[in-house]
């Protein structure tokens, strides 16, 4: 059996990153780890996009005396990924800022606890008694 071509290996790797990122987002119980998992998901998508423009035997799309006349890889996906990487880091920074403030206010970044505290806070602001029927962990009422 011949080994699969290099592009398919990379394609599989990118999909593995995406699947790992999604799984991490779903299963993480600490919001900080969710943010890290998000980074992995984006990395997988970026790898896939660069792969979309890869051309077997092509050279990098920069004109130098050495590359004139040779087939080049597609420059467009590279530009797109450039954009996507910068977008990703901006979103990550904003997420971390929010996580810092949530941690300051609630003292925890546990996914379920933060959700419980948030619902309780919203209920309290609306003047509602905390709901007991919902399948949330019991949390102490904020004073």
């Amino acid at each position, binding site marked *: 059996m011949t080994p699969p071509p290099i592009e398919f290996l990379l394609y599989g790797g990118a999909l593995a990153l*995406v699947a790992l*990122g*999604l799984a991490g*987002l779903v299963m993480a119980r600490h*919001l900080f780890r*969710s*943010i890290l998992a*998000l980074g992995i*998901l*984006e990395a*997988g*998508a*970026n790898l*896939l*996009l660069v*792969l*979309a*423009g890869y051309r077997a035997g092509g050279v990098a799309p920069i004109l130098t005396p050495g590359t004139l006349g040779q087939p080049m890889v*597609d420059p*467009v*996906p590279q530009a*797109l990924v450039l*954009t*996507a990487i910068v*977008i990703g880091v*901006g*979103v990550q920074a*904003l*997420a971390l800022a*929010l*996580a810092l*403030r*949530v941690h300051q*206010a*609630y003292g925890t970044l546990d996914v379920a606890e*933060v*959700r419980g*505290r*948030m619902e309780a*806070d*919203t*209920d309290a*602001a*609306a*003047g*509602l008694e905390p*709901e007991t029927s919902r399948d949330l962990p019991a949390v102490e009422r904020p004073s």
Partner: protein
Amino acid sequence: MNAVVLAVALPLLGAFLTPSLARLSLPLGRLFGPGLLAFCLWLLWGIARALGDATAGVALGGFAPPLGIAFHLDRLALLFALAVPAMVLALWPWGGRPREWSLTLVLAAAATGLALSGDLFNLYVFYELLAVASYGLIAANQRPAAQAAALRYLLLSAAGSALALLGIALVYTQTGTLNLAQLALLAPVSLDGPLGLAAFALLLLGIGVKAEAFPVNTWVPEVYATAPSRLAGLLAGLVSKLAVLVIVRLLLVVFQRPEATQLMLVLGVLGIAWGELAAWRARDLSRQLAWSSVGQLGIVFVAFSLPGETGVLAGLAVALHHLLVKPALFLLARHWNGALEGLRGAARRAPLAGALFALFALSLVGVPPLPGFWAKFVTLSGLFAQPGPLCSLAAVVILTATLVEAAYLFRTLTLLFGPGGEEPRMAPHGALDLGTATAFAGLLLAGVIWLQPLTGDLHGIARQAVDMDTYVDTDLPTPRP
């Protein structure tokens, strides 16, 4: 026509400069943004008048369309592009800090870009821009609950965006282009298969986060219950509609196939059922309105999944109606955000607000003379005209949901107008909120009076939106391959 890009560039310019200007002089910083938006409104109005029934493509930077980014101008795009500065002006956060004005301007620019762009990746960039601006605005009020809601929303929405990017990567791998018009030409061959459907599902899931589509709408009550009411109105009214517009464009132009439409229909039906039942269970007004928004967006999805001109007409009717009604309801609910039980007799103490609330609520349910009835009627008659059990099921679900909607909204109205409520613990409505809501009510009533010409206009828009030959010829002037 090329000046249309100013409607995107100028708000961004304003956003960059507002914080610095506000340091120099606060009044200048305060008026800069609204001034720019008013100019954009005037500019877009002029372009819409000049364009009339025609369509136009704008090649940004002068690079012939398949290579560069293209804007596609038609009546549908301009309708939503005009709605953006108008709505943002109506819901402008006058009391905020300079950075909030900045972010609101960014939101306006991104929303305009979403309405106009005819390039897949450009749509993704504007979508992300819209999302990032809204995270910042939601968290701006320093309430811990709002920040927690913003963080949870961010994680969901960013995961959705990454999936959408994955979808774009699949489309690009298969076709090698991002221009929607060129994709429209290639799609029947290249994207016809499970791959195209997978790409559409990924894009739908990603953009559906903002459109409050069924599986990815858990953020809706959390954010709308904690965000400032003007922002909640903006997100529920305007931003969700633009996300829907992007999905509809993709559906009409690129992924025109029965499986994609059925996917949208199913998600819409699930959204209606889920949203209206949750709204019925809600115990406070902001979350009731939030869930009802999910239900309404479900109806929009179902309406747009109808084939051809009927679908676009019905979807537009429901979407525009909701665009007008929901922000006004959020504005009126601002001081009534407590538990429903605590609202006893609140409308008696604020008769104008109560009357307006009743008007909007009745239109939302679809009581006959009001535009809401007409919107639902168009959708339902379209559904009944379709063969197949799925469409009939959707029609039944919409009818049942209307009953549920009527039940909880009448319950709220009975509480509001009923007797009781000794302690007036609620502050009176601000003049600005009431004025804005009254203006929206005026527009709604105008819709009743001029229903005939309005229907004609919407028919024209729908006819143009489904005309793919014109779309392709406009954006790709070079002869077809």
